[in-house]
């Protein structure tokens, strides 16, 4: 399992450095159950370049509230502590991979 499980205690420290994709989900949300394996595959594919993490909104409602999550699945991309992009609804692996690669390539040139 290459997907990190974040809590309110580990969240800040994780997004502080590098690129992290965060998947907000719940066990009772159908589309979330399809998103998780996609995110899981992406995590193992990209483990040398980006972090991939998930947050259970039932258990970590504080983080969800802080970032204004009002629909799940919601996916967010953070870079060095900053929120770069929010995606709402089920996303395909190729779309997420493209997004991560885009932000990774911007990082290289800066």
């Amino acid at each position, binding site marked *: 399992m290459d997907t990190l499980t974040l809590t309110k205690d580990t969240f800040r420290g994780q997004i502080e450095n590098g690129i992290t994709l965060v998947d907000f989900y719940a066990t009772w*949300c*159908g589309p979330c159950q399809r998103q998780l394996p996609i995110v899981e595959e992406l995590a193992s594919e990209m483990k040398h370049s980006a972090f991939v993490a998930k947050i259970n909104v039932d258990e970590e409602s504080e983080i*969800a509230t802080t970032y204004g999550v009002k629909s799940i699945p919601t996916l967010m991309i953070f870079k060095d502590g900053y929120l770069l992009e*929010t995606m709402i609804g089920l996303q395909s692996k190729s*779309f997420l991979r493209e997004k991560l690669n885009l932000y990774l390539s911007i990082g290289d040139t800066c």
Partner: protein
Amino acid sequence: MENAIVIGTGPAGLTAAIYLARANLEPLVIEGPEPGGQLTTTTEVENFPGFPDGIMGPELMENMRKQAERFSAKFRTGWVNSFDLSKRPFNLFLEGGEELVTKTLILSTGASAKYLGIPGEKENVGRGVSTCATCDGFFFRGKKIIVVGGGDSAMEEAHFLTKFASEVRIVNRREELRASKIMQDRARQNNKITWSLNKTPLEVVAGNSGVAGLKVRNNSTGKEEIIDTDGIFVTIGHTPNTKFLNGQLETDEVGYLKVKPGTSETNILGVFACGDVKNNKYRQAITAAGSGAMAAIDVEKFLEQIENH
């Protein structure tokens, strides 16, 4: 090359997959952006035969999927970008560049929730505008919510949302509701539900943290007002998922696929349609499942024919 590719995993697609898999045709089922279809966004299904105590929509869909898997239907997640239906076998192109080839095709892509199409709406999807009460109701605990619509689904969603919200206001363009009497009564008896009838939604009003209100026009006085709300759940019906076909198949004026009456055949030989994506007036889980079985049987017959020639 596949014998059959089924696109869509609602009751129509999964029933087709069960039938094809049992016929040893090893169908490939492509699961798109709304896996399990509309039923996964409902709560209890009380009218699907065989479940005397009702069954939860998502569970019913999970069961259908398992049943198809039991007979070795293959599943994969994918977004179909384009098709070439001009010759058989058919070519499908997935997002990410992958190409699939199949002798037959079953389209069961269903229909998706319709939006109002008013200013401020699209920008605030996921910021307070939603079409799925069961997915997003959780985020409106103790908040005020508006449900737009007057049909059975609107009544059901409103009723469900009172579990979380402090107040649920039903906004409907007409004075009369389309909903069945039993659903209307259920909503009217719920004291957390309030009503704004005969009012047309004009604009979603948003602040920094998302939706703040809904601007409406009173249809009898012409007066406009903003109703304060934290969330807007749009429940005004569905629209068929046929855009990605790029006009390669015949549809009616709204976009529903046309099939030959009494069959699942589209205007292209070897392409079949079932469930809510095709022109039909019933839109029930059971009729979708039934049409899925028809499509699978039509595919079997078609494959036999082309193999014998």
